[in-house]
């Protein structure tokens, strides 16, 4: 694939590479600066592997002060910077460019403080999402956002992309679960925004930073909310004859005022792929599967489930299968969360991420199928149905340039469809490079200019993650 353009590398910067490396080496420990081609290679892409750019250098600082020193140096030298968490972005948010220095936070991976009385944890940005929950789960707590990549992805990256997960129907996404950050600004100044309290004075800068895709500064620490685990949780599998009936059931459940903690959708191709991988006990005789998880007291779970089952029956559900043990529950979620990895074993795919009003689900599912078939490709759907966040996986062969291009076109058509029915280009993966050139589908010039003017307050020279989010054409300075 090569449809998405990168800015032409600045020849002046490339020519100054040796001097820049020397400058950086004075600022960080020797093992924190990566310059050889072999060692830089793992940083040339992220989870959008179709695009690769070898960065000028990679810096892996150990402290906020080192991040500040490197950022200040790059700003003064006019060198672009691409912040990086764990490099699991599906939208290409962490893909570098040839004239940029990658600043990775992977060495900043300590949990600094756990405070149960105030239900917060203070962590460094390189801590993985799952490690936060891991640090508090023995005491009955958890960190709510749970992206599929939670074993690998970092809190810093989650903040950059405002990541979600399967359970945000009840608990919200990253922006609803972060109370404070330490942010290093482009000029090297270090600021604390928010903290252990529930709101901060002045403009909601924290709300602006979350989801800003590394364009406003580099987050090195975060204060996140930790929540007490529910009394119990029960995932239930609902097998429907077709996707359309499953989609209609989702809309009806939400419409009846029922908010299960998670409501995940899989179509037939996704069920087959995930079951073969995880042996989760998914029903194989259905056209679409909903994994609906209820949680809370036994009384609450019983009440919710009874209503959900009644609605599912009205929509022609075939199989209803409740988890009977912790092992079954783990298998059900393992199957769902490994969907992307399992798909990757059978084909190359691009994972789309758009959002639609839930009432549009049946229509959009049919239409997506037509779109992808129109390009002669296959699609597997696995997504967060409760909040209308679609993740169609478009399957293709990356060694066939024609197919690769068609897959990208099909993906673009699907995202445009999301906007047409009243949704958004992205749910939880961010814009990155992947959806950058589609921003004009959702926003007009005034909308985009206002966003760019806010961006310019932090980075007037387009040095921070400059290839991302905003179309390369039509950019404004401030």
């Amino acid at each position: 694939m090569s449809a998405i353009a990168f800015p032409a590398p600045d020849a002046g910067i490339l020519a100054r590479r040796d001097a820049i490396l020397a400058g950086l080496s004075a600022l960080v420990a020797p093992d924190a600066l990566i310059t050889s081609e072999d060692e830089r290679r793992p940083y040339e892409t992220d989870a959008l592997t179709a695009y690769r750019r070898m960065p000028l250098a990679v810096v892996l600082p150990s402290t906020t002060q080192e991040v500040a020193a490197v950022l200040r140096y790059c700003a003064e030298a006019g060198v672009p910077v691409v912040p990086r968490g764990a490099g699991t972005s599906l939208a290409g948010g962490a893909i570098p460019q040839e004239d940029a220095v990658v600043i990775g936070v992977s060495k900043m991976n300590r949990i600094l403080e756990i405070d149960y009385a105030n239900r917060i944890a203070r962590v460094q940005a390189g801590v993985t999402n799952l490690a936060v929950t891991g640090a508090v789960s023995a005491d009955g707590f958890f960190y709510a956002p749970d992206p599929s990549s939670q074993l690998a992805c970092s809190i810093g990256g989650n903040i950059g992309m405002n990541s979600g997960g399967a359970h945000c129907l009840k608990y919200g996404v990253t922006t609803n679960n972060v109370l404070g950050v330490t942010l290093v600004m482009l000029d090297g100044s270090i600021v604390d925004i928010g903290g252990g309290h529930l709101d901060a004075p002045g403009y909601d800068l924290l709300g602006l930073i979350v989801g800003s895709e590394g364009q406003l500064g580099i987050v090195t620490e975060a204060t996140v909310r930790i929540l007490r685990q529910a009394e119990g949780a029960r995932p239930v599998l609902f097998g429907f004859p077709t996707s359309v009936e499953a989609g209609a059931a989702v809309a009806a459940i939400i419409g009846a005022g029922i908010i299960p903690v998670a409501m995940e959708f899989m179509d037939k191709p996704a069920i087959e792929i995930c079951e073969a991988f995880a042996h989760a006990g998914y029903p194989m005789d259905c056209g679409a599967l909903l994994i609906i998880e209820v949680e809370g007291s036994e009384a609450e779970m019983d009440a919710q489930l009874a209503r959900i089952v009644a609605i599912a029956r009205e929509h022609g559900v075939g199989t209803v299968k409740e988890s009977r043990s912790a092992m079954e529950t783990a298998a059900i979620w393992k199957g769902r969360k490994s969907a992307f990895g399992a798909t990757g074993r059978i084909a190359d795919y691009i994972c789309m991420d758009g959002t639609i009003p839930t009432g549009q689900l049946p229509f959009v599912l049919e239409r997506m199928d037509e779109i992808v078939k129109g390009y002669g490709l296959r699609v597997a759907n696995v997504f967060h149905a409760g909040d209308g966040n679609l993740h169609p996986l478009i399957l293709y062969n990356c060694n066939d340039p024609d197919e690769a291009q068609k897959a990208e076109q099909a993906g673009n058509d699907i995202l445009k469809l999301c906007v047409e029915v009243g949704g958004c280009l992205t749910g939880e993966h961010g814009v990155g490079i992947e959806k950058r050139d589609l921003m004009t589908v959702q926003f007009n010039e005034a909308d985009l200019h206002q966003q760019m003017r806010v961006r310019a307050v932090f980075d007037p020279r387009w040095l921070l993650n400059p290839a991302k989010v905003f179309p390369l054409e039509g950019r404004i300075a401030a």
Partner: protein
Amino acid sequence: MLHTPSTEAQACAVVASIVAARVPLAIRGGGTRTGLGRPDNAVSTLSSAGLTGITLYEPAEMVIGARAGTPLKLIEETLAERGQMLPFEPMDHRAVLGTEGEPTIGAVAAGNISGPRRINAGAARDSLIGVRLINGRGELVKSGGRVMKNVTGLDLVKLVAGSFGTLGFLTEVTFRVLPRPERVVTLIWEGLSDEAAVTLLSAALGSPFEPMAAAHLPGGIGADEARTLLRLENFTASVGYRAAELARLLKRHGRPELVEGRASETLWREVRDAAVFAGTQEAVWRLSLAPSHGPRATAAIARAVPGARWFYDWGGGLIWLAVPAEGDAGAAAIRAALKPLGGHATLVRAPDAVRASVPVFEPLAEPLMRVSAGIKKSFDPAGVFEPGRMYAGV
């Protein structure tokens, strides 16, 4: 001069003329929160009174959109008819500010106005999923949308929530909504000290029994005896079970009384609206801090500011504080008390002269002040929208 546009196009034209004339402009919804913030020097007023009506209500998608001047009351009634509600229980400022009029949905967004449910369901900013506003270039700008996961590009919705009109004139807002709970009960423990109460609330909020609101009213605040409150909301059977479990978990603090229906609603409305401080001559502060630090903050303030009275919401993390409206209304002492604890203080009610001389919102660190001024300028280059309402120069 009062401008009351009835369309977005008219509002754009008004703003363009105001910007050309560089006239400081006050933005007005129902007028129930005027006086919140630093005193203004506005010579013109732009009202949302002509922009009313619900534009989108999809109960099945749990979303409601309305023009900014729509009365909050209409939104709440419309939602109630379908068994739904705003998730964040917005405070009504009329009691504590002594104002009249009808609060509007636009002002709820512009002020990020939340209430006791904030601890569990988030603030107004967490439920606000889309805005349309007119910036200081006279351009209509939209951000967010009508779906829950709404952020594409920079999240301008968050910036607008809580900007008190300083970034632009909201014309339309969209919120996510939630189903109303089947049953609501409040557990009340009596006679606890502040420390014991916050310990109780913290244990409850760290339990799996999901309190949706948690407050403590010390003795003399609305009743002689101190009262510690926890509110449960859920399916009927679940609420009964959880009330019993909480009573068991917290039994060392005594046996709670259980109230529901109107008695429970009244109690929480008084907490939400800081109604106990209505109509007095005192200055009123709102302090936000980590909950377990609440009692230490109030103890320090009590030593420095004679006559201070307070109560706690948000499990101890929100303190409503009334002090004599003399001198700096306790500003220096209150902010000094918070300094070692973290958190911040907002002067919600005080005479104009005090609010003109004391920072109403907590002063920001220099780089953040610089960023805030830059953001203001990016929306409002001529500096006409509510100039200085939050900070001098913003």
